[in-house]
């Protein structure tokens, strides 16, 4: 009896998450068709989705695996560049845009996962804050290397350089695809709100199912008590790696959406630096560590908030910072938590006595 109840409980919880995303999608689509969303807001729709996807990915790493990563923007960067190179190269062929974009996703995700493995091998041996700083370092290295990267493709194959386009030795008439700090210009803008929502739903599906599965339990066991997990026969390295690489792959998918939503892709700090990783971490923590639905909600609110504060003009980021600090204090300070609990308990008690009173009254 109680078994079926709980099974449907987690199941229902997931359905609420998917339902929430779908309902918001439908509402936004209706508003779009009615012309009620201005251009500025329209421009935020796809970014909200890819940052949500990245937040879900980071939450898998921080909330479920229990390791603080400050380098997830780096995985986004890898996914963005790998897929953009593909799409740029293929846009002159007769391949249908849909198929091209689908393959772009596979490439972006695969590239991010490969980098995830390469980074995971050294990083996952470290503990706590050391792991955090090393992921930050890796993120910065990725961003840095990408902004120095020159890449071109001609009949002889792929040419790479970290110095300048001249060193590529491309055949006449072939232009480099990636131009160092100028990045990639002229990628097809295949992403749209519908596709972005689908990617978000798939990411949520993957992560929530993973958490409920045998693998998910192993990952959380490692998070809660590594020594006990080992003594229970869990292969710690394997499951840490699994969670980290899936997380990297999903962040890579966010990167694919990113690069196919703009026409010029550059690897600069404001797009892929550690501050972006931190921004996403803020979404994760405010949405609730380990709570995927919360990550999506927090991303949507916090990403749109500065835009809503646009009326405040130059004060908006200043106000945003204060809102952030106050929210953290109210949400997490033990004193505030106690106060909330007390208030809640009193509220419930009042309700209870009121009910009891009513019962007495009728009797």
């Amino acid at each position, binding site marked *: 009896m109680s078994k079926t109840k709980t099974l449907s409980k987690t199941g229902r919880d997931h359905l609420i998450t998917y339902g929430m995303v779908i309902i918001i999608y439908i509402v936004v689509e209706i508003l779009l068709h009615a012309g009620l969303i201005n251009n500025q807001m329209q421009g935020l729709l796809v970014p909200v989705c890819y940052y949500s996807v990245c937040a879900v990915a980071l939450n898998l790493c*921080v909330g479920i695996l229990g390791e*603080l990563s400050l380098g997830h923007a780096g995985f986004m960067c890898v996914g963005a560049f790998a897929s953009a190179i593909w799409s740029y190269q293929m846009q002159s062929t007769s391949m249908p845009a849909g198929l091209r974009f689908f393959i772009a996703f596979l490439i972006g995700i695969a590239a991010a996962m490969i980098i995830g493995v390469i980074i995971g091998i*050294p990083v996952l*041996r*470290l*503990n706590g*804050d*050391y792991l*955090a*700083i*090393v992921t*930050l*370092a*890796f993120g*910065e*290295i990725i961003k*840095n*290397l990408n*902004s*120095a990267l020159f890449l071109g493709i001609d009949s002889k194959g792929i040419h790479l350089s*970290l*110095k300048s386009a001249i060193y590529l030795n491309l055949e006449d008439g072939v232009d480099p695809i990636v131009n*160092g*700090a100028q990045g990639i210009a002229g990628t097809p803008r295949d992403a749209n709100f519908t596709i972005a929502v689908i990617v978000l739903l798939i990411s949520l599906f993957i992560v929530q199912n993973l958490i409920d599965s045998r693998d998910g339990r192993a990952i959380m066991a490692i998070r809660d008590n590594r*020594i006990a997990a080992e003594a229970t026969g869990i292969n710690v390295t394997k499951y840490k790696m699994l969670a980290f690489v899936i997380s990297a792959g999903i962040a890579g998918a966010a990167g694919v959406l990113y690069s196919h939503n703009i026409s010029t892709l550059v690897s600069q700090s404001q797009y892929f630096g*550690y*501050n972006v990783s*931190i921004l996403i*971490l*803020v979404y994760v*923590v*405010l949405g609730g*560590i380990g709570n995927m639905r919360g990550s999506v909600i927090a991303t949507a609110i916090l990403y749109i908030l500065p835009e809503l504060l646009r009326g405040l003009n*130059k*004060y908006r*980021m*200043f106000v*945003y*910072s*204060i809102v*952030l*600090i106050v929210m*953290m*204090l109210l*949400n*997490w*300070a*033990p*004193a*505030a*938590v106690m106060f909330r609990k007390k208030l809640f308990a009193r509220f419930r008690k009042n309700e209870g006595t009121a009910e009891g009173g009513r019962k007495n009254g009728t009797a």
Partner: protein
Amino acid sequence: MNFLNYLISGISLGAVYAIIALGYTMVYGIANMLNFAHGDFIMVGSYIIYVLVSNQGMNPIAALLISIVCCAGIGVLTEKVAYKPLRNAKSRLAVLITAIGVSYFLENGALLIFGSNTKAFPSIVNWSGVTLFGGQVKIQGTTIVTILASVIILVVLQWFVHKTKEGQAMLAVAENYGTATLMGVNVNHTISITFLIGSGLAAIAGALMCSAYPSLTPYTGAMPGIKAFVAAVLGGIGSIPGAMIGGILLGVIENLSKAYISSQLSDAIVFSILIIVLLVKPTGILGKKVQVKV
């Protein structure tokens, strides 16, 4: 001889990182938190000096002293208002995110007051320096002062931590928060002192860094802050000599790779060094190994 020039300016840059890293490492060791806003105190301190010297025409040294006092005050205040309530929060991420909020607050506050235009910072060192080897090697006055300052700070800090009562209290809190409280150490007071010193040091670092690289914006402190954090981890977080070694090492590597490899890739090289060191020694150069008791 070029090499010597690069090396010396690298040491000087490293000395700045070291001074910032000292603050980072002390706050980390004692309050057990990654204070992401630490780097922004460099910027706050530098703006204070900028206003006092460029606008008010004050003596640079007097301005520096005021800047140190102000930064120390703001640092202590920040800890009391934003960090202390979260000291026993369920997740350590809470205080990390709040520190990020404080960082945004300081940067955007400066943006509101001073705008995004780069300000030319007035050097606090009025000495052109020395030339050696018949003019082949020229050492700026700022460079010499920076290196000297970092050495003096290191010595004073070591003395303070190991020889004074306040310093002993710091070591006790760093070792074990709970036990220190039981032994009668006033933890709140000790943490305040830590933030006071750390933020004051950031002001000094800011003045020295901006004297060498005189362009000041609201984001001036962010990257040096991160680099100093890397330096602190490299040297072994929580260790004062470690922060010094890590800082100098980082500055030298950064400068030499800028000069000889690629200015674009210098940051990537610096971060790679951190990763390599941590792979060999997971707790940094002078870090202590911690064994989990089963």
